[in-house]
């Protein structure tokens, strides 16, 4: 593993209302990685991004980005980072190109260099045709792309993306994913927060799950899934038999997945668990309408880790 480009060491942040947004969080993000930050609403993801982007000071702990301390040398950190926040922070009355160029000028680039890079960046995000139209005519996905492009013009070593695809149509989402992968391939470190678990699964080299400002788990998607206990059995039954089935399956620790309306059992023994489950149902004279055995998704990981706090979030992720 490369040396960490972002080092977060025992960082805490409490807001005036008493909310403890970060509670001794420690993370190390390797150079060149796409790093996914997962957590329910209010877990502290945005607070962490804001601290890393020098918008907020931590109460305690040490944060270094590209070797610079965010509290002592925020100006040096700003030279190295790009931020695309939760909202597309673009101006409706400017064209796409003007929006990008404005940020270029504020990064300290000359006029000529700004124009050159803006043209490159616009090509990159496939918006060359629309670049000279005012942003107010853009779709939500296009605005996001312009917002992201604007943060690329400074060629940051580290890019922070706070929920980059929230409310974006599937095509634009794919485009953004491509862009993030390309950037990572060129050596940019990308830290992204997301509520979409499949996004983290697809995009992130490593994932941290946080809740209540604390780290719950960290690793590659595969590692996280393995840690959750491997395979699961999923059973579908007619609604009137479900309660009986839950009782019958008690020895196998079933849980009802409300979103997919299925009964889910941990299956550490794979097919053997499946056989046991069917046997138990048979004894109770119940017949499932559908049966499946599969490895856990990130949804399962997430749900297991944060079930007590936010069952509703896992439902929102596709």
């Amino acid at each position, binding site marked *: 593993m490369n040396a960490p480009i972002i080092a977060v060491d025992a960082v805490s942040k409490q807001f005036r209302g008493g909310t403890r947004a970060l509670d001794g969080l420690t993370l190390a993000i390797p150079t060149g990685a796409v790093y996914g930050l997962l957590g329910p609403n209010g877990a502290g993801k945005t607070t962490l991004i804001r601290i890393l982007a*020098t918008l907020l000071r931590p109460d305690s702990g040490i944060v270094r980005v590209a070797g610079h301390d965010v509290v002592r040398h925020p*100006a040096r950190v700003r030279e190295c980072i790009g931020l695309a926040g939760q909202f597309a922070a673009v101006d409706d009355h400017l064209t796409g190109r*003007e929006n990008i160029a404005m940020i270029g*000028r*504020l990064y*300290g680039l000359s006029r000529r260099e700004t124009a050159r890079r803006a043209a490159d960046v616009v090509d990159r995000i496939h918006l060359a045709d629309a670049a000279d139209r005012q942003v107010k005519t853009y779709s939500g996905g296009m605005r996001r792309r312009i917002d992201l492009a604007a943060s690329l013009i400074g060629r940051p070593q580290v890019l922070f993306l706070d929920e980059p695809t929230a409310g974006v149509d599937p095509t634009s989402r794919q485009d953004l994913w491509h862009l993030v992968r390309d950037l990572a391939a060129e050596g940019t470190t990308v830290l992204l927060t997301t509520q979409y678990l499949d996004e983290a699964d697809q995009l992130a080299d490593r994932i941290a799950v946080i809740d209540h400002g604390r780290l719950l788990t960290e690793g590659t998607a595969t590692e996280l899934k393995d840690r959750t206990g491997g395979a699961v059995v999923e059973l579908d039954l007619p609604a009137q038999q479900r309660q009986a089935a839950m009782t019958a399956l008690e020895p196998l620790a079933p849980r009802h997945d409300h979103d997919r309306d299925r009964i889910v059992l941990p299956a550490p023994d794979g097919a053997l668990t499946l056989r046991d489950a069917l046997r138990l149902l048979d004894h109770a004279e119940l017949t499932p309408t559908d049966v499946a055995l599969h490895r856990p998704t990130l949804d399962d990981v997430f749900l297991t880790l944060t079930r007590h706090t936010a069952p509703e979030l896992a439902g929102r992720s596709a």
Partner: protein
Amino acid sequence: MTTTASAHRRGRAFVHTGVITRRNLLANVRLPDVLILSTVQPVVFMLMFLYVFGGAIQAALPTAAHGEYIYWLIPGILAQSAVFGSAPTAYGLNNDRTNGVLDRFRSLPMARSAVLTGRTLSDLIRNTFILGLQLAVGIALGFRWHNGLGGMLAAMGVALAFGFACSRLMAYLGLTIRNTEAIQAAIYMVVFPMTLTSSVFLPTQTMPGWLQAFAEHQPITVIANALRGLTLGQGALPALLIRGFGVRVPGGAPVLSRPYSHLAMRL
């Protein structure tokens, strides 16, 4: 070494202020509905007062107004517009904050001062345009200055400087109050009564004593009267008031710059 670094920093602040100012001004030009509303409204306001109140007020005017309400009204209206024209500073900054634009700016290696300076500067330029337009309409309707062009230009300068000072207070509101509607309420709760209890539309002499004491000394009256002095000549006002104005405005600057630098740090 240090001097070149600070010179570089100053140059950078200058460029960045220019970039932000241009961005803010483009919004006025490219969102024509905003510009039209913000220019038509003051003119309509002016015409309304001129024709609705003008006849009734004529008799109560001091002699320097030459018996015409328009001589009284135009300098007053310029003071009033300078205050009203500073409100967009609060809305603009509040919008930028809500839309994440301020966060984006703050994450950039840019001059921190440029956001506030650019905002107040673009609003000053906008105000110059609106006040110029009002003066032009006023002249078309019969207003004339009686104290030379120099006096008229000085009056515009004073009105705009006042508007700029108000912009800086508005910047404070725009950044400290989160809710846009609350900002609107806060501004109108203060600005409307302040304007109506000043000498902008009417001489203060007919007000009850307690109100008159306030009306005579509140800033909008001071500015409106200063503008009258500058455009219509010494006879328009007691000399004391004009001299008093000269002391007040420079004295006010450091007071206003305190919340401003505080804001720059907050940014």
